[in-house]
């Protein structure tokens, strides 16, 4: 009896299933969004020209946007943010943390047909990551050699302990592998494969027409059988933001990544049924809007003044009314989107104008007869609308407590050279990008001893031996729990001292057509492989 009931139920289920299938066929688009289809072309917005397309030489979102579909890293992040095996299938470390062994994927071939082996990993690590890759050269500073006992094993030997979890979190960005047989014996910086990349990824490079488009097509020999779904990916280069919005709206583009549309348009697209506007898929790329203090100014060397500035600005009001809600009050250098490291209960500076004025008075900067205490020059970075709006907001908020602010604008090259090379600023504001682990690109904003001219590092004229020590200890701490505790201590210390202020926490915004299936499903989706992305037609 029970058996027959089960059979009966199964049959009914099958009938139901078939029925719903028929329903799907008659109602296109009703349920199809759940099931990826094969074929189709996805058009992607690209808002700046790239000099090279080799992520083993350039760690940059603009490069990943294209090249990460063509070349692959040793590990990536999976949907839950854990390391996912890509070209490496497994990894292990020795107790002293100085040897890390990667087992490599077998049966993988480069787009030109040559097999992928440990020699490629060795060459890329030693000749590209350690020598030329931005952030990579710092990460791999103590990498002595990569041994290749066999074709599918790569052994990284370090002269100082390298925490495995740090390496695994850094490698999705800083672990792309380039083909040795193409680069060996050439000048790696001028090799033509830098603009016509050869990789192992789901898509093969076809064409880069400068100023117009880049095309990549399906790799039929991809190691993940049956993938990718798409026939082609086309990146259209449109530098004007309004024109990019128009192209999205006209259906010429399917997806815009890394907040490359005007804020007002993002807000408008939120209410448009054809698009999804989301910060999902950008969890691994948190951004802070900063206020950077030049401690060589005696006023700003005073902790009370820095705290007063933090108290004087209504960040919540700004996020709500200027950023259309695409951002929230920052709580420190480690963003809330990084639960592995985010510490609770660190010192914060709520909006309180009266307190700001009191702190300024206490610091000895009384208001003059004209209502002003002192004047500062603010240099905003030209990265985007948000920075420009934020700098005006800073100017007005500080004006209200008696600090006169003059805004001096430069373009990208001018900003970097004035702020980080010439130290020609009092306040600067730009973006701090958090890359999965504080040791990758965050602690350099606080660690002293950075050579003059290195952008996005401590060029503030501020130094703390105690904080330097925490940073160094955490970078070589092998126990994950202890590392987390050290970074909690670090955030507490820098939130107390406030050498710079991480005022706003934001995530990049993706605008995707609703016809895309499987988008924004990993923490660094815009920079990932897109093998499982598909489009309904």
């Amino acid at each position: 009896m029970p058996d027959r009931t089960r059979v009966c139920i199964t049959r009914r289920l099958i009938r139901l299933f078939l029925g719903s299938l028929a329903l799907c066929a008659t109602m296109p688009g009703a349920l199809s969004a759940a099931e990826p289809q094969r074929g189709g072309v996805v058009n992607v917005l690209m808002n700046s020209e790239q000099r090279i397309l080799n992520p083993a030489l350039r760690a940059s979102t603009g490069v990943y946007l294209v090249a990460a579909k063509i070349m692959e890293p040793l590990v990536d992040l999976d949907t839950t943010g854990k390391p996912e095996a890509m070209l490496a299938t497994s990894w292990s470390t020795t107790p002293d943390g100085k040897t890390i062994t990667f087992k490599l994927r077998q049966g993988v071939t480069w787009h030109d047909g040559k097999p992928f082996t440990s020699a490629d990993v060795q060459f890329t690590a030693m000749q590209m990551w350690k020598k030329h890759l931005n952030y990579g050269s710092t990460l791999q500073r103590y990498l002595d050699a990569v041994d290749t006992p066999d074709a599918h094993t790569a052994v990284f030997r370090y002269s100082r302990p390298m925490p495995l979890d740090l390496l695994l979190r850094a490698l999705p960005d800083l672990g792309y592998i380039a083909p040795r047989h193409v680069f060996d014996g050439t000048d790696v910086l001028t090799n033509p494969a830098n603009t016509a990349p050869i990789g192992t990824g789901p898509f093969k490079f076809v064409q880069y027409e400068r100023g117009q488009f880049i095309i990549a097509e399906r790799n039929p020999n991809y190691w993940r059988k049956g993938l990718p779904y798409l026939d082609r990916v086309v990146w259209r280069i449109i530098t004007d933001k309004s024109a990019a919005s128009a192209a999205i709206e006209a259906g010429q583009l399917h997806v815009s990544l890394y907040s490359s549309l005007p804020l007002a348009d993002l807000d408008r697209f939120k209410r448009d049924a054809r698009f999804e506007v989301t910060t999902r898929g950008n969890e691994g790329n948190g951004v802070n809007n900063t206020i950077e203090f030049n401690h060589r100014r005696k006023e700003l060397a005073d902790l009370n003044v820095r705290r007063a500035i933090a108290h004087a600005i209504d960040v919540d009001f700004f996020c709500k009314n200027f950023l259309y809600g695409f951002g929230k009050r920052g709580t420190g250098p480690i963003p809330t989107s990084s639960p592995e490291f985010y510490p609770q209960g660190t010192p914060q500076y709520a909006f309180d104008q009266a307190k700001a004025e009191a702190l300024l008075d206490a610091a000895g900067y009384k208001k003059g007869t004209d209502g002003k205490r002192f004047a500062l020059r603010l240099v905003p970075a030209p990265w985007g609308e948000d920075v420009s709006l934020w700098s005006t907001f800073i100017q007005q908020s500080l004006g209200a407590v008696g600090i006169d602010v003059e805004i001096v604008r430069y373009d990208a090259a001018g900003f970097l050279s004035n702020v980080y090379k010439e130290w020609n600023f009092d306040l600067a504001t730009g973006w701090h990008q958090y890359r999965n682990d504080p040791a990758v690109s965050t602690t350099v904003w606080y660690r002293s001893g950075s050579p003059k001219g290195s952008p996005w590092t401590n060029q503030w004229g501020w130094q703390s031996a105690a904080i330097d020590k925490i940073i160094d200890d955490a970078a070589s701490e092998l126990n994950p729990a202890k590392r987390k505790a050290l970074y909690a201590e670090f955030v507490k210390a820098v939130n107390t001292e406030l050498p710079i202020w991480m005022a706003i926490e934001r995530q990049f915004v993706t605008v995707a057509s609703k016809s895309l299936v499987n988008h924004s499903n990993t923490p660094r989706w815009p920079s990932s492989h897109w093998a499982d992305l598909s489009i309904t037609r």
Partner: protein
Amino acid sequence: MRVLALAGRRLLSSLPTLLIILVGLFLLLQLAPGDTVDALVAQMGGGDQKLTEELRRFYGLDAPVAVQLSRYLWRLVQFDLGHSAIYGKPVASVILERLPATLLLMGSALSLAFFAGIVLGILAARKVNQWPDTLISTLGLVFYATPSFWFGLMGIVVFAIKLAWLPPGGFETVGAGYVGLARVLDIARYLVLPTLTLALIFLAIYLRIMRASMLEVLTLDFVRTARAKGVAEQAVIVRHVLRNALLPVVTLIGLQAGTMLGGSVVVESVFALPGLGRLAYESVVQRDLNTLLGIVFVSALLVIAVNFIVDLLYARLDPRIA
């Protein structure tokens, strides 16, 4: 042969000007804060000291300015425009890739502005102070007073987004693989909006000049003579008035060829066209000195060429000038 000799003389006489422009621009860009490595590092999102030093050596920026300048001029003498920092290939080939789009856009916009301007100008002058004149003059004023980027964006909103008649930007359908006539038609479809956007402001100028100059010539004695001897009105306008009234408009075209190259920066950005104007803008932002100087060089040659053609036209229209 005489024409070629004239062209050669023209080119020679503009060499000093070219040299002054190039050296001046080179020095001017030295005043801009930051160099191409700073711009690159900004794009990459970070780089350490060792890396930037190496890149500066790679781009030849470690030498003093005087050395860099003399290196550049020496290469120029050998007809070598140098290597582009953004594109990693010779500047000459980078510019050559972009030249067709710009020439096509400039050529079509200039022709449209010229012919439509003349026709509308004549119409307005013939019906002076009547409703066609008022309508044309008002429209002209509206075109002249509206910024071209706004025209472009509104054109996109109306014709590309709302009506979906024309593509919102780009040069041709990517990856469609059209050849022959199909490709020509495809590109033409993409060029409609940018051409209109760029042409309207010039059209307004030409129509106003044409109208004024027609009205002036119409009052001259030889027109009265022509009419008195019984020439048909149509022939008076075309053979006597038009020919004389055209001179100021032709002069303007020569003068404005440079302005149009400048104006195309905006139009190329709004419509994502791969032209010289956008290339120039990108080169400034990226501090790509070689490319920028190369573009200035080529643009100067273009302007010289247009002015030379204008001179030839003068001689055609008014034998007294030749």
